[in-house]
């Protein structure tokens, strides 16, 4: 790594350690348009020569250090998987897209039957595509998030305050996702989406430990569920709300998360074997989440290249899936989900 950016000593050492363990090179790139989570463009996912960590231009100090640390852990996990066995991600095929979209459609129909104001068909079709894609993205990212954060917390004590700020912000942002569509998308998917983030935040609140991170403290919609008595839980109407259900599902997902992550010694000496074990635990945990959310046949474990090709063919897969569901009612132009809005 060669950079003219000032970097704190622990981060410089961590980058060097990552490069040495994986025998690879890491570049740092500041970009005003970068995603607030930073982006890792790595040699295990893309056909490139060196790894690049990109972060927003206004992250000039410890926020930048935290993003780098997080992506170094991600890189170590991917690299260890690639070196010791094979690095795989959750991809999709034409058939799996059909199964996913069909399932969402059936759930949407159930919800729509109860609604006074029905969703226009065009919007419904867009929603099917967007939900499938969102869950694919989430399942590829979310299970790795608590792993990365727990490791950074234990390896980098000097950036803990930064990490806490960052996680509180991330928690709020993730919980805001889909908020505008709460009444549009099937309840089940809204709840599962929130439950995943709830489980992650609750796990990190315990691991860091930081009460501020608990969703019932950090997320406005969940604050009312803090310190509830059982009687209240059973008798009050808000037990029917999506946020309460998210908490209930989230608690179960937290149990799944803890079951797998308790096997990891967060303070262990870093090695390829260690990170490979972490990768395998992450894969098992992801499978358990997928199964819990009844999405088992939506995704397939494949190399990253498969996912990139699938993403290129996504519109085609979606069109075929919708054609199978709706028959001749579907025209090519009606399946476009690129707008990303319902």
């Amino acid at each position, binding site marked *: 790594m060669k950079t003219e950016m*000032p*970097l*704190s000593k622990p981060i410089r050492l961590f980058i060097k350690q990552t490069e040495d363990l994986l025998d690879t090179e890491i570049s740092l790139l500041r970009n*005003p348009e970068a995603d607030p989570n930073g982006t890792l463009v790595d040699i295990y996912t893309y056909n490139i020569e060196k790894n690049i960590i990109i972060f927003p231009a*206004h*992250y000039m*100090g410890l*926020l930048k250090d935290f993003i780098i640390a997080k992506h170094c852990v991600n890189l170590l996990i991917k690299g260890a998987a690639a070196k010791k066995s094979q690095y795989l991600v959750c991809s999709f095929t034409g058939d799996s897209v059909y199964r996913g979209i069909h399932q969402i459609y059936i759930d949407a129909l159930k919800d729509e039957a109860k609604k006074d104001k029905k969703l226009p068909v065009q919007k419904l079709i867009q929603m099917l595509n967007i939900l499938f894609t969102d869950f694919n993205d989430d399942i590829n990212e979310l299970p790795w998030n608590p792993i990365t954060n727990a490791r950074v917390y234990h390896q980098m004590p*000097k950036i803990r*305050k930064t990490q806490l700020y960052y996680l509180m912000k991330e928690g709020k942002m993730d919980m805001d996702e889909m908020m505008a569509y709460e009444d549009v998308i099937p309840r089940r998917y809204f709840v599962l989406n929130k439950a995943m983030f709830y489980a992650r935040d609750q796990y990190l609140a315990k691991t860091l430990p930081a009460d501020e991170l608990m969703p019932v403290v950090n997320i406005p919609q969940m604050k009312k569920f803090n310190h509830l008595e059982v009687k209240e839980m059973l008798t009050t109407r808000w037990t029917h709300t999506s946020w309460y259900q998210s908490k209930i599902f989230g608690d179960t997902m937290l149990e799944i998360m803890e079951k797998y992550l308790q096997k990891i010694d967060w303070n262990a000496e870093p090695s390829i074997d260690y990170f490979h074990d972490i990768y395998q635990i992450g894969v098992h945990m992801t499978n358990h989440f997928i199964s819990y959310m009844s999405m088992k046949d939506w995704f397939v474990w494949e190399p990253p290249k498969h996912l990139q090709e699938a993403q290129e063919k996504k519109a085609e897969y979606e069109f075929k899936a919708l054609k199978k569901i709706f028959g001749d009612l579907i025209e090519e132009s009606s399946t476009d989900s690129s707008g990303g809005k319902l």
Partner: protein
Amino acid sequence: MATLLRNHRQIVVGENYDRVKYEIRKEASMTTNEVVGLLKKGRASAGRTKFKEAIVYYEKALSLDPNNPEAWYLRAAAFIETGRNAEALNDCARAIVLNQNYADAWSKKGHALYNLERFEEAVFACTRALALNGNDASAWYIKGVCLDELGRNDEAQEAYGKSLELEIILDMEAEKKKVGK
């Protein structure tokens, strides 16, 4: 201005003084506008990480107005990005000579000194920058990093803490802007 006066020496002889003064002011203002334009172009190039291109703009600006501290400071910043730290240090020194209270130039000097591993001097430059502008997150961070290198851990933590506070404020402002867009 000295160059302009030399150019106008011929006009001064035997001509109306007010007219000459007007001509000089007009030309000076044209030069100032040109320099401002060049610096703007340089900044835009640097924003696109085209630092070598930015340096060319700054050099043109300096040839027109070598007494512009901002031009020296900006070229120093671009030099740092291209690894030319010794030259960056010289440029910071020029900027500071022209304006002793130029906080950003002191901060950039701290950065160049850090890259040259002259940590004690970098701490001094950052401290000076922070005395002039206590809200410079980058200067607090570089100071923290250098103090860390010098083994002054408690002071380093304090500097990191200040840097983080300011960075969080900047981050929140950036979020607000994004939401506004």
